[in-house]
């Protein structure tokens, strides 16, 4: 008996058994990786010891001794390296978030524009996309910063809008507003307006579902959200004062200053990412079956409504995954700030802090870790959103 079974399934030598071979391969890889890591760590330890490179994280709480020109959270030159890290991170997030919003808006407009029936709009949108995405982002950043923003006039010859907003080679200077007495009521009115608008919209929707009757949702919501606070604002006697920037000494005093470095980075990031978003939007819209919009047209739905209510919601399913990728790319690309001198995470932390402390390994590891974390969180958030979209579409 045993003889026949062996003849049917001949005994395989362990070397030819795929399972065992698989484990051997994995073992080899594991050992190779371990040896590589171990030797890298070993070398790094010897090298760092012999070169006097600090290994701990005690630099984190040491006083930094340098200044940063854009700090959204308090920072002086007596602050610690750790605080410098947070300043850099906040600056990175600031420019990324604003650029994402801008890039999305421009990208959607251009993407829809490429499919426009208007010949000139479609052509211009195509030219925009083809030009900007074939030129390196760094080149665009340098162009905006060195060729557009730096040649602006100096503070004494600033371009002025309404005598309150100034543009010069030190940036964009806006008036700063201060809320006076009674400003709280305006805020309360704004909140109340938003809540009321939401309640009204929900009721209107229910009404439409039940009776088919449409309500002027847009205008009533606008009135509630904008009109109500404005009314309260007027009643309270306009409790708002503006500090108009004034030229004193070298530069303007008072007001809010937007650094040219920030503007250059923002322009570069949003215009560059927008052309990728435009392509995503275009292919998303094209992926929606033609019958959908034809049916809507047959029902007499206007072109703009068709786009907004029929096409885009369906296109979103296709659009969102690559859109997430673009957002992540934008955040990662914001690290190019270092080339235009904007104090983002890489410029402040991997630049100045790394140089002053010499703690190369720790600083690089922390910076990479943060970007990794941002990437993971963003894809997580987008994943959840995506799931919701898909569920609704069922």
């Amino acid at each position: 008996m045993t003889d026949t079974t062996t003849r049917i399934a001949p005994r395989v030598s362990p070397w030819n058994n795929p399972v065992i071979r698989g484990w051997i391969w994995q073992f080899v890889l594991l050992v190779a990786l371990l040896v590589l890591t171990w030797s890298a760590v070993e070398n790094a330890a010897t090298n760092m010891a012999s070169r006097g490179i600090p290994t701990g994280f005690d630099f984190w709480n040491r006083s930094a001794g340098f200044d940063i020109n854009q700090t959204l959270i308090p920072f002086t030159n007596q602050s610690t390296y750790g605080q410098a890290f947070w300043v850099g991170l906040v600056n990175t997030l600031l420019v990324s978030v604003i650029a994402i919003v801008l890039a999305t808006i421009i990208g959607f407009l251009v993407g829809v524009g490429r499919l426009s029936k208007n010949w000139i709009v479609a052509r211009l949108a195509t030219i925009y996309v083809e030009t900007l995405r074939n030129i390196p982002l760094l080149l665009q950043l340098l162009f905006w910063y060195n060729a557009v923003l730096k040649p602006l006039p100096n503070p004494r010859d600033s371009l002025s809008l309404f005598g309150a907003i100034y543009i010069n080679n030190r940036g964009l200077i806006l008036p700063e507003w201060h809320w006076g007495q009674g400003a709280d009521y305006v805020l309360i009115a704004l909140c109340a307006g938003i809540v009321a608008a939401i309640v009204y919209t929900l009721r209107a929707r229910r009404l439409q579902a039940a009776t088919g009757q449409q309500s002027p949702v847009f205008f009533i919501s606008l009135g509630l959200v904008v009109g109500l606070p404005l009314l309260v604002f007027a009643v309270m006697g306009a409790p708002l004062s503006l500090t108009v920037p004034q030229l004193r000494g070298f530069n303007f005093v008072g007001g809010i200053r937007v650094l040219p470095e920030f503007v250059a980075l923002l322009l570069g990031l949003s215009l560059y990412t927008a052309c990728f978003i435009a392509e995503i939007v275009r292919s998303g819209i094209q992926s929606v079956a033609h019958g959908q919009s034809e049916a809507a047209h047959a029902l007499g739905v206007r072109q703009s409504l068709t786009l907004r209510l029929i096409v885009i919601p369906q296109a979103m399913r296709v659009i969102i995954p690559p859109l997430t990728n673009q957002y992540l790319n934008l955040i990662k690309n914001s690290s190019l700030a270092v080339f235009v001198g904007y104090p983002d995470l890489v410029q402040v932390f991997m630049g100045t802090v790394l140089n002053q402390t010499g703690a190369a390994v720790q600083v690089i590891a922390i910076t990479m870790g943060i970007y990794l974390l941002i990437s993971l969180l963003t894809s997580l958030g987008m994943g959840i959103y995506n799931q919701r979209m898909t569920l609704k579409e069922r």
Partner: protein
Amino acid sequence: MKKLILASMLLAGFGAVAASAGTLDQVKQKGFLACGTNPGLPGFAIPDDKGVWSGLDVDLCRGIAAAIFKDASKVKFIPLTAKDRFTALQSGEIDVLSRNGTWTQSREVELGLLFAGVNYYDGQGFMVRKKLNIASAADLGGASVCVQQGTTTELNLSDYFRSHGGVKYEPVVFATADEAIKAYDSGRCDSFTTDVSQLYGERLKLVNPEEHIVLPDIISKEPLGPAVRQGDDQWYNLVKWTHFAMINAEELGITKANVDQKLTAEQPNIRRLLGVEGDYGKGLGLDKDWAYQAIKAVGNYGEIFERNVGADSRLKIKRGLNNLWSNGGIQYAPPVR
């Protein structure tokens, strides 16, 4: 695994694999001196269109190469940014760092370097436009100041304004000196700050150099000099004494031109320095004519100074502190004996 093999193949192909002997032996084995320099600072280290380097820091390295090989051309200049100059020295990529680096305690104690001397006594200053009519750095309140990242300059700047009653200013930080000076030139900043010697050098890169002035205030001490790794005393001595030999040569009146005649001079100091009497090169691992070779190749300290940054150069910096101690400066070298 594939990566490892690939990496090691590439490393073996490109990498300079040095033996683990003393630095001098390594240098002799390689056949050249690896000298870390500034990538482009007029007067200190700058390559011309054909890649020929010149400058104060460059000539020091040439002098060392001449002392070792009797050939000042056996030196390879490796341009380094402020950021990675120290790691390049620590990693053994370069043998000596002659890159207008400031001698500070932390650089010696924490980074494990040794500064072998001071070939330029410097201090940090400010450059502004003439038309601003500013007489002193104290008037810079509210100004935007362009500065290079990762240098002591950035910290001194912050300290200066802090110690002057916390006057407000805006630091605009760039990764390289070129970007910082260009930003200043284009009007992004009211002032540009760095070591004074460098200010004079960078000023030459401006569109209209004569429209800018260097303010008289010096806000820091910046002794610039060549640095080596700790743990190799022989090499440290070699660099240090090559530098001293050039200062001594100036003091003794030995120049590039007359060094051959001086071989027959009577003064014992000169005879000892040029290796006619005694063998002072032996302890350094060199021949006894080491100093003769160095002087023959690049001249004495005064000649180097005048040629690169002084009266004979475009920078026209006065000797000042860098004059010999006997002429009112503080350049002073211990005797060779």
